[in-house]
């Protein structure tokens, strides 16, 4: 079946939509939700023990990991819920206001 291209989804004519508004699988990656964030978790690599608790609890799969070690936070999809900050036992995640982050 013909599939929408996500970067121009809004440009589609109605009759081009697949019946029932079907999409390619995995399209949530293309949908940038980071703009919803008012608070931002900031990662301190020096304090991080790679316990992976933040990776477990993150509801948006926004803890980036490579070779069994944390590499950062995916700010394109992190909505700033703060669950990772709350669960971190090593003070490796700080929660700051988004407007403060913009200045820094």
């Amino acid at each position, binding site marked *: *079946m013909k599939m929408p291209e996500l970067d121009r*989804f*809004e440009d*589609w*004519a*109605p*009759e081009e*939509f*697949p*019946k*029932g*508004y*079907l*999409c*390619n*699988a*995995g*399209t949530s990656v293309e949908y940038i939700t980071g703009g919803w964030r008012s608070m931002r978790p900031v990662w301190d690599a020096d304090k991080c023990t790679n316990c992976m608790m933040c990776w477990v609890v993150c509801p948006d799969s926004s803890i980036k990991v490579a070779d069994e070690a944390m590499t950062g936070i995916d700010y394109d999809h992190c909505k700033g819920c703060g669950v990772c900050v709350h669960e971190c036992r090593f003070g490796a995640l700080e929660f700051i206001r988004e407007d403060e982050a913009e200045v820094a």
Partner: protein
Amino acid sequence: MTATKPFSATGNQMIAEAMRQADPDVMAAYPITPQTTIVENYAKFVANGAVTTEFVTVESEHSAMSACVGASAAGARVATATASQGLALMWEELFIAAGMRLPIVMANANRALSAPINIHGDHSDVMGARDTGWILLFAETAQEAYDNTVISFPIAEDPDVQLPVMTTLDGFITSHAMERCVMEDDETVRSFVGDYAPANGLLTSPTPLGAGMFANGDSYMKSRYMLRHAIQDSLPVIERVGKAWADTCGRPFDVVDAWECDDAELIVVVLGSAAGNVRHIARELRAAGKKVGVVRPRVYRPFPVKQIAEACKGAKAIAIMDRADSLGGQYGPLAVDVLGALASAGQSAPFHNYIYGLGGNDLTNDLVHKVFDDLEKLADGSLGTGGTSYLGMQEAEGAQNIWLG
């Protein structure tokens, strides 16, 4: 036409048999009041190995329709049945089934909604499904309930339609009363219904798909626009499939059953089983030389606007009978649809809207006579147009129709 032997059966039995012959892959249902014997009969077919259907018992009608949505999205042929508060509990999922363009077939025994507690026959439940995007068929008899259910599968699954279909019959009056019926043989129905080839089943598609996705305002509105056109454009498909089945079984099919309307001046528009009561009196009046007609939409969604207007074109007065009310609105749901159809065709005639038979209240011969008597008064001007009344009830003293002033 197949040579079949007549037998006596309830509307519920006939729908269960039609579903058995279509042999859906999945049926999900909640088996307690106000469920009907459709599901009870079907569970026996499953237990006896008469069908290949996977029968899923769930904890509520909300879950029943959710399971049907999931199974249909996966690519299965899906059927179920419900009634009354059960349909009401499904309301959320009815929109999802239609919006996702899932060809689910569901039988509904049209019944009342509480309060007061009542599960007897009227159209209060199904009128709640009126705007959901489901195709709605109304059967007058148990035989028609069977025929409507058979055609529901190819209509729903037509690649141009791809919409859920509700095949309805009037609670108790048609669902539980015994009538003389015939049934086509299994092979005839199976070849008529055919095998189901889902267009985009989640488990049948060669590539991964996302279904039931989020859509922002612009995409949402475009998607709903396509849904409006899909159900609107399904009317010719319903007509084509219905006529093909009529050719197969020898019983007529029309989206609107227009009885004696060619020269009719006094016309009653009515849905479902009550049409028989009205025609019974109309026959007597015809014999006495009165030009009366009875219009019964067999398809209610999509509403057959042109056919209704055509059937009513010679009318000098029209009575529209609703077995459900639209509380706080001026008229019942059928009346609003009929008046819209007449207005768009540039037709008008004096009319009156009757709310009748709520909660299984009987539509007696006397009440039907009262409707035809009123039609004569509407036609000669001695009764004003545009009123609404609860048929057979005395208006409370001092009661005013606020809309008419």
